[in-house]
């Protein structure tokens, strides 16, 4: 008898389990259903009494409309997310290599100080950051946001790569040293080729975080450099809004990270575990 049979054996237990799982599933999917049916209704057909009903006529025009008005914002988000994810991943990989394989006196303390940057409430640095970005002429430019996300992404990317490289046996590195390989040669020929899963985890994590971020975006962008989250918040926050458009926009804003989650789910989970349960 397996321990699971204890739980499974009872008929009532099993039904209670499936009932609860089904309830939980409807709780988690309810907003998705609501988003889809609202986005697919004619604006005139949306009213609170019939909010749960399926649309009488399926209207795809809201997606087209949202797509047209959001396209520049989506582009901003893609440029921002891809460059900042790549930059912070590459720097994080090098940092992780140093911290895992070439620790110098005090590097552990430095690492702890770096990590703290990942937890701070950004409200505590927002005012000087705003002044700084303005001062170097990047306020309202997407590159200001790229810089900010790269820098504040460094702690988590460094952490994930460091823990990942700890698993690479030191003997491998030492052997290459004895063969006469230098610092960068070891990185290129030994460490980097083993890093692909690490890069996938880090890039997925950063992609999701940066795509979804709102505080920096709303503080440092202007209408022409706005990422999608800011545009969506503005669209949905307006008064007397018809809800088909915000719902269609919400789906557009959600799709890229949802796709990443659907395709790379396993790596996604590894990233979120790395961000919390260390060691």
């Amino acid at each position, binding site marked *: 008898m397996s*321990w699971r049979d204890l739980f499974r054996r009872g008929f009532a237990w099993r039904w209670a389990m499936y009932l609860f799982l089904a309830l939980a599933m409807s709780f988690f999917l309810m907003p998705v259903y609501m988003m889809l049916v609202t986005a697919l209704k004619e604006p005139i057909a949306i009213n609170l009494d019939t*909010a749960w009903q399926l649309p009488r006529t399926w209207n795809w025009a809201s997606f087209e409309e949202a797509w047209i008005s959001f396209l520049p914002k989506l582009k901003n988000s893609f440029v921002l997310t891809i460059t900042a994810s790549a930059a912070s991943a590459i720097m994080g990989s090098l940092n992780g290599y140093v911290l895992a394989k070439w620790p110098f006196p005090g590097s552990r303390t430095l690492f702890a100080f770096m990590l703290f940057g990942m*937890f701070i409430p950004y409200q*505590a640095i927002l005012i000087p950051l705003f002044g700084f970005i303005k001062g170097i002429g990047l306020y309202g430019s997407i590159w200001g946001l790229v810089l900010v996300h790269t*820098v504040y992404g460094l702690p988590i990317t460094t952490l994930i790569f460091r823990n990942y490289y700890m698993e690479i046996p030191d003997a491998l590195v030492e052997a290459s040293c004895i063969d006469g390989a230098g610092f960068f040669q070891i990185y290129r020929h030994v460490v980097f080729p083993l890093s692909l899963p690490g890069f996938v985890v880090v890039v997925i994590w950063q992609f999701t975080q940066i795509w979804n971020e709102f505080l920096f975006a709303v503080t440092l962008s202007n209408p022409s450099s706005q990422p999608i989250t800011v545009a969506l*918040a503005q669209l949905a926050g307006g008064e007397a809004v018809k809800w088909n458009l915000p719902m269609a926009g919400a789906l557009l804003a*959600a799709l890229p990270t949802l796709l990443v989650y659907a395709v790379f789910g396993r790596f996604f989970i590894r990233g979120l575990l790395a961000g*919390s349960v260390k*060691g």
Partner: protein
Amino acid sequence: MRWQRRNRAIGFVVLLPSILLLAIFVYSFIGRTVYASFTDWGKDPAQALALKPVLRFVGLDNYRELATGVIDGRFRQDMVSTVFFTLFFVGGCLLLGLLLAILIDQKPKGEGAFRSIFLFPFSLSLVVTGTIWRWLLQPSGGVNRLPTLVGLPAGKFAWLTSRQQVWRFDWNALPMGAALLAGAALGVAAFLAFRAGRTRRGWIASVGSAALLGWALAAGRAWAPLDWPELHGFNLAFVGIVIAAIWQMSGYTMALYLAGLRGIPEELREAAVVDGASSWQLYARIILPLMTPITLSAMIILGHISLKIFDLVFAMAGPDNAHTDVPALLMYITTFRGNQFAKGAAIGVILLLLVALIILPYLRIQLRKEVHE
């Protein structure tokens, strides 16, 4: 060896740009925020937006105003709101997350599908979540209409537009209340220390506890920060935001617990069953105690997310809704709408202190654990 020393030196140089960037963007910026919070930046509208504002050093005035000023009652309510929000959000995520993890760990049919469905909200932006839930929580639609689908009367709760406040207390009772609570906590700590045989620690804790309790009972009542009564409590408008936040983050908690459950060796469970443990005993006596470190980690991670929550509230209730305000949002409004930079900086520093209070011990433990392994 020589190559070792050389490579360590190169390593330091490679690390240097990141160190410098974080030194500037994290530590020097924190320093400048702290400095700004000690000035009157923004008091004089003419200076507020000047390129080189003339700032006067005012010491702790901004903090004093936040704690006791007439116009800063909103901040005090926000602090109370954050505490309530954190309690319900963290508690809800832990409960639901643990329950889902235990059920999924039974390997029901469709296990993978359930897991993906419970976790997908975590990949969404809080702005997306907020937008959808804002529509779901319209007082005469959405969730309130759900009962009508099975023939029951529609719900009446006003959700985000609710103006009700429960569990109200006078801000003036806070020093006494805090001292009583801290005294009681130290008392428990003392008891635990004595039981563990750490007498010195136990005595220190008992003396601290006695001092706090004594002060609270003797002088606490007389020490009121305000000259007027000021009631704060839990705004029911937050209920909907808590639900949306749990919707977003309980899957994450589930994933944390699931990783922990998967790490418990099968033999251990088999052994318990062979020894005659019921499934209830198996969980209550063996598995849950093993989950304690994960619960602690999850509490800390969720707790600091909760203190920083900004986008969800912004998207669900708008930035200017005093009934659903939190300090993270008030800091933004105060600074970038009101141009009260010094006061905004002070709120930012208070947030930082709160987060540091829970994160620093956590970082210490995590990093120390690694050394011992």
